[in-house]
Structures are given as structure tokens and as C-alpha cells.
């Protein structure tokens, strides 16, 4: 089985792009990734494209706009993990020996599709009686506060941290830090979560070029970063009265990635995790076994997860700050890991990291905690 490397990365600015199409954004990300990888269009043997609300054959439209046609192209929908599932598919094709140079793209023009709160699929009973995505996480936050003795203000520190990081990322949706007071003054979306604690509706695209170890030498890149693990899992149907502050799906996905990489949680230097809501960041980092259950929020308050802290989380700004164009999110996380591991993250550079982890999960379906989850581990 051949090892997989990330050879090139590309990402558009995240935010509102009323004057651009999803295909146009996807094309820009592809162009940037090819240039960064130093490969030409004809080198790309196959492509996987993750998106959620972009309709039929979005992948083909984006690749055609970027001047690629005729190659195998597969469209991937897996809720908020669509882009990272495209990476999983692309990496599997290299491991299987089918291809050596492939593309994974995530793209979403969400602002033209959605207003207000995202909700589970309308056919689910939860959605039919009024549950929204903020509502799910708000209910988990209530349990977290009760079980671990933290306050809404403690949880709000996660939003403050991520928006501070986002202000140092030129591709972020939000460019302005917020204070704890500003978060507390934001309107309630679902108690206790307020406006700044919910990821925005963003448009954007991100792409990576993956390459096999055997072909790597031909491209002479010393900027390639090894994709040591890529895992994908789905939620198990919940049976009985489970603890809603513990993410079984996140743990099973991370556990598979640790086994693949031969790397334990204690060896990870930094993380990009799926902070669709402030509390979600705590549930993910604890869920992956990186911090003991119930400790994350108080350690954020102490500054441990800042860029210069002991375990930086969401240096990119995360979903809360950088933005959350659903299909693009999981790819953008890997883009950030590569930038950090190359030492190219400028103002928000973490001090000499060696191992990074990206966690992306999404969706709520009837009777499961989450629908899809991916974990990628990158090693310098």
C-alpha cells in the first residue's frame, strides 16, 4: 500500500460571494492547488468533489471551469464532512494503487441556498417538530455546563479565541476579533448559544492535490506533507440513555486514524476541529481523547489552546471565524494543517509543529448523534 502525501493546496477567501458561482470558486481553488503542487492539468488522473447543496454534477462544472475534463470525476455528499470525504476517497484510490496524482475539492455557495438556522433533513422527526442545528448543540451545552461546572461565559472563550485567530487569516470570513463582552451581548440563537458562537453561512472552496510516495520524487517537492491517516465513520444508532457530552462517533473515527498512523493522541501537536458551534470544539477535542472529558473549556479559558499555547486548536480561525462553506470545510482544515506544517502560516504560525490532526463531522439524522465524521492526521 503506497503512502499518500499532500503535494499542493489551494483555497479561496471564505465569506459572502454574491457575484460569484460555486463553479467559479471551485475553479479558483483548483488553479491555486495545481500551481502550489507544481503539476499540470494533465497530471491529474481523477477527482473527487465534496458539496452539500450545489445540485447535480457540481464537480464537473468546477473542473470544467478550471480547464479539466474527461477524467474520472465523482461528486461526494456527506453532510458537513463532504469535502473531507472527498479527500478520503482520493487517498483510498492512491492506497489501492489505482492512481498516483489525484485532486480533492470541496466547494459550497451556501449564501444563495440558506438563510437563518440550518436544520436536520426535513424528513427526520426531530426537524419536523422544530429542532435546529444550533438547538442540538445548545442542548448539549446545557448538559456540559451542568456536568462540568462551566458557565456560558466560559464557553464563549472558544468563540473569542477562534475569531482572534481568524483576524490573522487573510482568507477568513470574519476579519475582526470579538471581546467576551461582545459575545455576551450577541442575540441568543438557542440558549445558551449566542450569535458569535454559531458558524456563519459562508461561500468558498478549497482543494488539495494528493500524490503517491512512489511518484513524489518525480515532482521533486520537499514541501509535500504526509497524510499519515484518513478515516471515515458514520454515527451508530443510539440505544439507551447515553451521555450527550461524549461523542462516540468522534472517538471511533479518531481511534481508527490513530491506529492507521501508528500515532497516539499524546503525539499530536495541534488540531483543526469542527467548531460549528462554540461548545462543539470542546466535544470534538475531548471526543478524540486529546483532552480529558470536562476539562477542555476551562483550559481554553486559561489560554492553553491559543496559537502560542500548549495545544493550539483552530489556529485558522475554525468554522466560527474562518467560515463554514459546508462542502469546503473539511478540505480547508487540511489546507491549514499543511500551511502550519510547512511553516507558511505567517502571523498565526504555531511554533515548529510536527503532527496535526483535522476533525470534521456533520449532520444529524433520526436517532444518531451525527451522520458522518472524518479524521485526517498529517505528519511533517
Amino acid at each position, binding site marked *: 500500500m503506497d503512502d499518500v502525501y499532500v503535494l499542493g493546496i489551494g483555497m479561496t477567501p471564505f465569506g459572502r460571494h454574491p457575484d460569484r458561482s460555486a463553479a467559479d470558486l471551485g475553479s479558483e481553488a483548483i488553479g491555486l492547488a495545481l500551481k502550489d503542487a507544481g503539476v499540470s492539468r494533465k497530471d491529474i488522473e481523477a477527482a473527487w468533489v465534496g458539496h452539500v447543496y450545489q445540485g447535480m454534477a457540481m464537480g464537473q462544472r468546477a473542473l470544467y471551469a478550471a480547464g479539466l475534463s474527461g477524467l474520472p470525476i465523482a461528486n461526494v455528499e456527506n453532510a458537513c464532512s463532504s469535502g473531507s470525504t472527498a479527500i478520503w476517497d482520493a487517498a483510498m484510490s492512491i492506497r489501492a494503487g489505482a492512481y498516483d496524482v489525484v485532486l480533492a475539492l470541496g466547494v459550497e455557495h451556501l449564501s444563495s441556498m440558506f438563510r*437563518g*438556522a440550518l*436544520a436536520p433533513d426535513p424528513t427526520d*422527526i*426531530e426537524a*419536523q*417538530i*422544530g*429542532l*435546529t442545528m*444550533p*438547538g442540538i448543540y*445548545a*442542548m*448539549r451545552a*446545557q*448538559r456540559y455546563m*451542568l456536568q462540568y461546572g462551566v458557565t456560558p461565559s466560559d464557553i464563549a472563550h472558544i468563540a473569542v479565541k477562534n475569531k482572534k485567530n481568524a483576524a490573522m487569516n487573510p482568507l477568513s470570513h470574519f476579519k475582526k476579533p470579538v471581546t467576551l463582552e461582545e459575545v455576551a451581548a450577541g*442575540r*441568543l*440563537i*438557542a*440558549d445558551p448559544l449566542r450569535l458569535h458562537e454559531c458558524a456563519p453561512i459562508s461561500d468558498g472552496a478549497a482543494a488539495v492535490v494528493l500524490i503517491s510516495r512512489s511518484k513524489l520524487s518525480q515532482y521533486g517537492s520537499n514541501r509535500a506533507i504526509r497524510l499519515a491517516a484518513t478515516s471515515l465513520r458514520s454515527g*451508530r*444508532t*443510539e*440505544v*439507551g*440513555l*447515553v451521555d*450527550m457530552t461524549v461523542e462516540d462517533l468522534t472517538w471511533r473515527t479518531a481511534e481508527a486514524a490513530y491506529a492507521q498512523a501508528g500515532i497516539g493522541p499524546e503525539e499530536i501537536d495541534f488540531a483543526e476541529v469542527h467548531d460549528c458551534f462554540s461548545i462543539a470544539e470542546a466535544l470534538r477535542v475531548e471526543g478524540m481523547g486529546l483532552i480529558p472529558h470536562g476539562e477542555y473549556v476551562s483550559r481554553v479559558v486559561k489560554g492553553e489552546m491559543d496559537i502560542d499555547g500548549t495545544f493550539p486548536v483552530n489556529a485558522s480561525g475554525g468554522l466560527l471565524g474562518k467560515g463554514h462553506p459546508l462542502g469546503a470545510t473539511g478540505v480547508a482544515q487540511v489546507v491549514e494543517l499543511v500551511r502550519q506544517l510547512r511553516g507558511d502560516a505567517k502571523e498565526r504560525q504555531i511554533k515548529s509543529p510536527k503532527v496535526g490532526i483535522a476533525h470534521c463531522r456533520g449532520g444529524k439524522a*433520526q*436517532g444518531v448523534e451525527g451522520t458522518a465524521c472524518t479524521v485526517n492526521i498529517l505528519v511533517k
Partner: protein
Amino acid sequence: MPDIESPSAPEIMQYRQSQGKVHLLGSRCPSCSAAFFPSRTICPADGTEGLEELALADHGIIYTYTVIRQSTPEFEAPYAMVYIDFPQDVRVLLPYLGDGTPVIGAEAEIVLAPGPRLIDGALVLLPHAQSRQA
């Protein structure tokens, strides 16, 4: 009082009314005893087919809650929602009826009430959780 089957929105939530009490209708696996709401035909825990109907108690304990202040156009916000833990070892999401904040750990009974769902502009009758008066 005769039993009334889901008078208003049965396609959303299955329940039975009996002697003034509201019982949600789920299912139980005859092989591993796992309970589910809404009902299922195949047990996701062990693959057993042909699950049995299970009428949940008319009361349970509030596991967690929120007040949803921003929703989609099909709902009249704000409204509170709770997860109720039933004695049958199954947790069900329900809208919450009543003023004031739901209290985690408090006992709640299941009642029929309009809202928060709108169909053709009108609130529909749905099972709600309501805190038990001491």
C-alpha cells in the same frame, strides 16, 4: 374515555391517548430489549426484524433543554425543547409546554398542545412535555 389515535399530525409523531394520558408509540426489540422512538422495523443494535410496539410512559425526566429563538419558517419561535428520558430507557425530543425555563432532572408529563409546528399557517397539535406540578 375512548382511545383517540393521533387526531392532528399522526404523520409526525405517533401516540395513543388513553384515560386522559398521552403515550408515545415506539418499538422494542424482542431479542435485545433495546427501545426506540420513533418506532423501527429492524433493530439497529442486532439486526432483529419485527420489533414489537412499545407504548412509552406518560411521564419522564428532563435530560436537557434549550429555547430555540431562531428557526425555520415552519415554526413559531421562540419555543423550548427538551429531551425526556422515559422509564423504558429511551430518550425522546419534545417541544416543551409552559412558562419559565425547563429544569434538568425535573419530572415531566406528556400532554397534547398546539405548536410549535405550523402547517398551512396554523399550529398543529403535538405531544409536548410539561413540568409536573408539585
